[in-house]
Each structure stands twice: as structure tokens, then as C-alpha cells.
């Protein structure tokens, strides 16, 4: 399997605290990798370093052989990386359709000048954005709510909307930060369904999640963090048997 994402020795120190220490792993094409760990293990910090929101103290990440570390955030979308946020970041004052159409930005050539003079390119772009947005909206089944303000949707629907917005431009690699957090069982199953469907289309995922049932069901490989260090990596079955992982989650027996 060809490597899509390569993480090499990522380390982040906040003052004297080492939040993430020497983490290395790969994500192959068409693979779903989950990052799990107790609260404060450094999952989100790791996530933010890969997606260039934080610059690492040490180490690098590569995507398709390009160095990611040090890139500007907007550049990632152009490389084919999409991400969602733990604390939902949707555009509250835009309609659902407009939110999803925003996701098509990297496919469009609209700028302030050709928009101001309404050059033919604009109409073409609107059509591209609309077509792409419609596909994504169909996938998550938000057709009925297309013209509602995004801020008025329920939390579960907003999560689906954010997911739809991330997949509009058909990225190769999607990073999800706790995609199931706050969702009920029905919504969780639906979200898992979308992820599986996109995986079958060859898209890779890296996600952080606390709901173990979902992780075990979806992930091809799991990486376990504890106190900023990688303590285990393997298939769901291997992880469930791993003594270190059990100790991290349940505590060690003091004898």
C-alpha cells in the first residue's frame, strides 16, 4: 500500500510540558486510521500539528512526499487534505447550501475582480460549486434543509453539515477531530456509514475518537497515545489485547 501521510518524530513542547513526544506513523491510501487515548493524551495537539495549525517543536509530516510542516493552512486544501473540528466550525449565518458550496473553493477561479464585473467565469463557477455541493448534500441527506440557516440546525445536523463541507471538493485525505462527539447512536451509525462509503471510493481518513465501538468498527489501524507517547499501534483486535492499552485506560494493578 502506498503511503499517503508520513509522520516522522512529531514533538510539541508547551513550555516545560511535552504534550506530544516523538510520534511516527503512516497512513496508506484508502486506509482508515484512528488515534485514541485518554483525555489529555495529546491527540488534538498531534492533529493540529499535522494540519499546520501548530508548528511542531521537532519532527515533520509529509503528504504524498510533500513536506507539510511549515505550510500555510489554506495550502492543505489545495494538496487534497480536508479537516473538521472538535468544536464545530460551521458558518452560522450562511444557509446549508451556501456552507457546502464554500467547500468547493479550491475548484473555483472566482476573485474580487471578476466577481465585481460579473465575467462569464462567475456563472461557470457557481454551477461547479452548486453541482459539487449537491453531491455532498445528497450523501448526508440534508436536501430538505438546503435553504435553512446553518445556525438553526441541531447539533447532530451541524456535524453532518461540517462533514459534507469537508468532502465537497473530493479530497484524498480527511482528518476528523471527534466526528461522533455529541451524536446519538442513530447519528453515529449514519456518520460511520458515510465514512465507510467514502473509504470504498478510495479516500483515506485519520480520526480522533472516544467512542470505542465506532473506532473498532471503522478503523483499519489504531494508534494509541498516552501522556504524549505512542504506546501501541495495530489492528483493532491487536489493540484490544494489548496490555499497555488496557493499563492506560483501566489503570494498572498495584501489587
Amino acid at each position, binding site marked *: 500500500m502506498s503511503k499517503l501521510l508520513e509522520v516522522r518524530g512529531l514533538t510539541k513542547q508547551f513550555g516545560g510540558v511535552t504534550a506530544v513526544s516523538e510520534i511516527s506513523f503512516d497512513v496508506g491510501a484508502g486506509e482508515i486510521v484512528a488515534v485514541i487515548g485518554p483525555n489529555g493524551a495529546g491527540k488534538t495537539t498531534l492533529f493540529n500539528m499535522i494540519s499546520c*495549525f501548530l508548528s511542531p517543536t521537532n519532527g515533520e509530516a509529509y503528504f504524498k512526499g510533500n513536506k507539510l510542516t511549515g505550510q500555510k493552512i489554506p495550502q*492543505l486544501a489545495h494538496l487534497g487534505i480536508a479537516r473538521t473540528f472538535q468544536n464545530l466550525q460551521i*458558518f452560522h449565518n450562511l444557509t446549508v447550501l451556501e456552507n457546502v458550496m464554500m467547500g468547493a473553493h479550491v475548484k473555483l477561479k*472566482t476573485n474580487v475582480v471578476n466577481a465585481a464585473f460579473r465575467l462569464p467565469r462567475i456563472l461557470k463557477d457557481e454551477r461547479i460549486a452548486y453541482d459539487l455541493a449537491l453531491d455532498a448534500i445528497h450523501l448526508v441527506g440534508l436536501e430538505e434543509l438546503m435553504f435553512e440557516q446553518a445556525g438553526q440546525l441541531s447539533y447532530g445536523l451541524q456535524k453532518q453539515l461540517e462533514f459534507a463541507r469537508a468532502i465537497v*471538493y473530493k479530497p484524498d485525505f480527511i482528518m476528523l477531530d471527534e466526528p461522533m462527539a455529541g451524536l446519538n447512536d442513530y447519528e453515529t451509525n449514519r456518520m460511520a456509514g458515510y465514512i465507510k462509503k467514502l473509504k470504498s471510493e478510495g479516500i483515506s481518513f485519520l480520526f480522533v475518537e472516544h467512542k470505542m465501538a465506532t473506532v473498532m468498527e471503522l478503523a483499519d489501524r489504531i494508534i494509541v497515545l498516552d501522556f504524549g507517547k505512542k504506546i501501541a499501534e495495530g489492528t483493532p483486535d491487536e489493540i484490544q489485547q494489548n496490555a499497555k492499552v488496557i493499563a492506560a485506560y483501566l489503570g494498572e494493578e498495584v501489587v
Partner: protein
Amino acid sequence: MSKLEKVLYGNRLKPFLFLVGLILMLPFVVKSSYIFTILILIGIYSIVTLGLCLLIGYAGQISLGHAAFFGIGAYTSGVLTTSFQLSPWLALVIGMVTTFFIAYLIGIPILKLKGHFLALATLGINIIFYILILGLNQLTGGAAGLIGIPSLSLFGLPLTDKLFFYFFVWTAALLVLLLSLNIVRSHVGRVLRSIHDSEIATETLGVKVENYKVAIFALSAAFASLAGSMYAHYITFVAPPTFYITKSILFLIMVMVGGAGSVWGAILGTTVIMFLNEIIRFVGHTYFGISGEVEIVVYGLIIILIMMFLPKGLMHVISKPIQKLKQKKKVKIKSHKDMISQKGV
């Protein structure tokens, strides 16, 4: 395609034609030269507030310094036509281009600031500009101001005639409105509103947020400069107090009162505030014997009341019932296949 635009952003032709009709009709109704002057000033200030509305209402970036850009336009026109005998038209264009680049260069560092900090930085720009025009008295005439700025003339037609100038100003304002509408009703409009809601998410989608913020800042400054040049050629006299921060605040109040979320609100707000201004001055002077800038006190009250009771501005009050009426129609268009069959036409 046009159908999709209509569903997303409503009709724009009808309100536009309504405004054009109103502008054409007013000269027949209004005979008072005094009110005509106010109508001309509304046209001039609308150009500023339209740009400001794009910046504040759409992109969510505040500016308390647009009187400086208004002033750069006015003083460029004034200085170039009096000291260098340049054509007023050329001076107007030079003013716009210069302001665009100045604003672009200023915008790059200061638009990294957010909220109150940005407000203070833009306020600083305004104060710096004010000090410069006071200090550079060789060029600008200092506190005494600049007199004898020539009037504009178009194809040999002197625009000193109020009627001609009225049509000229409003043609320019309508063009600016059209450009603004085009921007707002396109992908760029969505980008700007996205930046307002969540900058971080907008960046993640591949938008170079910095570039958009700076471009809109510079564009709104260029609009302000255009208005400034027109102002200089209309009044034929410019002096520093016109371009102090009180004017910037006035522009801001116009945008807020009209409703920052809509470009139509900019024109409405400008009109309301301009007439209110005259009423306050008249009432204050004749009934209370107050001279001086009493309107400032009332503005303070107005902005507090608007923020408390009408945070979306007057335009929202007007457009809401219209939208409700249309809601029933919309449900029919909403049927999905209908939209798909229409797109691309």
C-alpha cells in the same frame, strides 16, 4: 443558473429599478435647492458606506478610519487640480488608484488584528492622516484648508448645475452599488461572510483569508476616495475637520443604522442619518437655541438604541415582511428536481 441566484439571494432587479426610478423622479418633486444639496451629499456618502458595508457587514472587519481614505481622495483631487493644474478627471482617477495602494499596504499588517484592536488601529490611521493634512500646509493649506478647487465638467457640460451634478453623483453611486451587488451575490460574497463567521474554517477550505480581507479593505478605501474627490469638486473647498474621526464614526453609524448585512442598507442608512442630521440641527437651533454639533449627542443615543433593539438595522425591518410574503412561493421552487433542471441555463 439565474434561478439558483434568485433562490439564494432574492431578486435584485426590482429594488434596483425602484431606486433608479426614485432617483429620476426626485428632481421633479424636490424644488428646494437646500434639500437638493442633501440629496447630492447622500449620493456621495452612499459610495463610502457601500464600500464600508462590504468591509464591516460582509467581511466582518471594522474600520474607524474611512474618513482618512475619503480625505485622501478629496485632498489628492484638491492639490492636483489647484497646485498642479491637472484635469479634475485625471486627479479623481489618480486619487482612487493611490488610495487603493495605500490602503492595500496599510491593510497587510493591520488586518492581522481583530475586533477592538483593528478598530483602534484604523482610528490611528485617521488621526495620522489628520495630523498630516494639518502639518503639510505647503501642499494642503493646513488648518485654513484648500480653496478654489475647480468644478467637474462632462463633455463641456459644467457640473456646477446642481441637477447635472445630482445625476452624475447618483450614476456613480449606482455603479458602485452594482459592483457591490455583483461581489456580494457571488462566491466572493460567500467567502466574505464565511470569514465573518469563522476565519479558521474558511482557511481550512483553502481560502487565503488575508488576501480577501486586504482586497476588500483596499476596494472600500478606493470607493471612499472616489466619494472624496466628488465631494472636493462639489464643495470646491476642503478643510481638515471634515476628515476627522467624527466623520469615520458617522459613516459607521450610517452602515449600522441601515443594516450592515445588506448593501441596500448602506444607502438607506445614509439617507436616514443625513435627513436626521438636518432635522436635529434645525430643531436644536430654532427651539432650543443650541448651536454647534448637537447631532453628535443624538447619534450616541441612536446607535445605542439601534444596537439594543434593531441589531440587524432598518433594512432588516423592511425586508423581513417581504421575505415572509415570498416564503410560500419559495417552497414550490424548493422542490429539488425543479432546481436541477434549471441550472446551467
